[in-house]
């Protein structure tokens, strides 16, 4: 498992010749080993930018990002990074099984068939091994995408609004499923989401962000013990926390 350390990180994007936008400003963040963090905020608040910086897909303008004391590129090189996007990013010409073999092929290892079969079972896609993404429902594609992120036993799992395109019912069900999967692996995880319930239900710690420039407004440690269930979501305290965080997301002006 991995610990993550962001120190004084800011990120500026250049739009045009002399138009710049500050996506993140002076961000400090420490994530402990085996912790599940949710980054919650409106779209455009820089939460995906943090994810990209931690994944090594982007370089910070100032400050440092360290994963286990090393730059994220090192984690990439060791193939210890698992990532899943809202756009499932599965290869449409490959079956579910072949999509799970992909990380092994990229890493230059022989696909571990037993491991893949186990993951397919874990995410509940047994019987769909030979289906192609176009033949699966949105929820099933996300299951496959998460299974693919777990293929190489990553030390760090990054989830960029994985259920953002799903309907509310499927989404809630997928939240339960993701918790079940995560409890078996206990990998350090960063989840980016704009749904308050999802953040509270899944995370150990929720960071509420504001946009332009992106800053952390609040930090909430979720008090509910694991495993959390449908009953947890019905608790008065759960609703209270949801309302509370929803309020702080609302624009102040």
């Amino acid at each position, binding site marked *: 498992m991995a610990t993550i350390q962001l120190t004084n990180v800011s990120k500026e994007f250049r739009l045009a010749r002399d138009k710049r936008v500050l996506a993140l400003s002076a961000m400090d963040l420490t994530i402990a080993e085996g912790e599940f963090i949710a980054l919650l905020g409106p779209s455009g608040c820089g939460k995906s930018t943090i994810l*990209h910086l931690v*994944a*090594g*897909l982007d370089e910070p303008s100032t400050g440092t990002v360290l994963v286990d004391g090393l730059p994220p*590129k090192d984690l*990439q*090189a060791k*193939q210890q*990074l698992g*990532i899943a*996007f809202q*756009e499932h*990013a*599965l*290869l*449409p*010409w490959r079956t579910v099984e072949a999509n799970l073999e*992909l*990380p092994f*092929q*990229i*890493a230059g290892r022989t696909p571990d068939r037993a491991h893949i079969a186990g993951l397919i079972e874990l995410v509940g896609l047994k019987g769909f091994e030979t289906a192609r993404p*176009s033949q699966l429902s949105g929820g099933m594609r996300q299951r496959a995408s998460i299974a693919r992120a777990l293929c*190489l036993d990553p030390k760090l799992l*990054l989830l960029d609004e994985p259920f953002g395109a799903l309907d509310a019912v499927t989404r809630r069900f997928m939240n339960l499923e993701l918790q079940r999967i995560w409890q078996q692996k206990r990998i350090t995880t960063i989840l980016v989401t704009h749904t308050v319930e999802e953040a509270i239900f899944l995370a150990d710690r929720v960071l509420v962000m504001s946009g332009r420039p992106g800053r952390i407004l609040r930090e909430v440690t979720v008090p509910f013990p694991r495993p959390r269930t449908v009953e947890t979501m019905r608790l008065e305290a759960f609703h209270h926390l949801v309302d509370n965080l929803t309020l702080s997301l609302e624009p102040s002006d």
Partner: protein
Amino acid sequence: MNPLRFLKKSWAVLLLLILWQTWVMTTNYNSIVVVSPISVAKDLILHAPVYLVPALWTLGFALGGLALGMLTGLALAIICWTSSILSGLLQPFALILTATPIVCLIPLLARLFGYQSRTELLTVSIMTFFPSFVYAAVGLRRLPRRSAEFFATLHAGRFKRLTLLALPAAIPELAVALRVGTAYSILVTVVAEFLMQTGGLGNMFAVTMQEFNLHRALGASLIAMLLSTALYEAATALEKHVRLRFT
């Protein structure tokens, strides 16, 4: 074959043939310059074996040139994919090659490379090279959403990105290029054969025209049309299949 389906697909072509037949019957052009479709069909049926070798020759060169052109186009697109400098340097070559009417260059190519069948092959491959290059270049960059980032997080090297991601992603576009290329391949082969008299249906056309054997000349062009249409429809079917499989 279902006759109704055949009629649905071919009514316009049949109409064209009927118009041709009535036109020949109602005008009084000399039969040396204008022949009816029925008399061409008669020659085709009665002397079918005469057409066989030239048809196979033309088909062979058309397909060979097509394969060569497609592969060259793909290879060049891959080279451009790996380097933006090479991509920029090669752009003018590719653009000039598209805008230049290659068929008009056949006389020049024949002079440069000889009045031989290799020039025929070269002409067809230059003609089909371009669609392959353009579509492959687009296809190699038309990746499934976020898949490039996914590959980056696993530190995929250039070779892995090419073989596991870009090349399979380019297959639907390559199928389009194949369809566009097949539309030209037979026609260009026939024109090249006609000009260089190397063999095949174009050569047959040239020779029989000189003998005023118009039935046979038109029979040869009819075969060329049939080959061209069949290839195009096969390529269209393949493209549909590929699109379903790869998207």
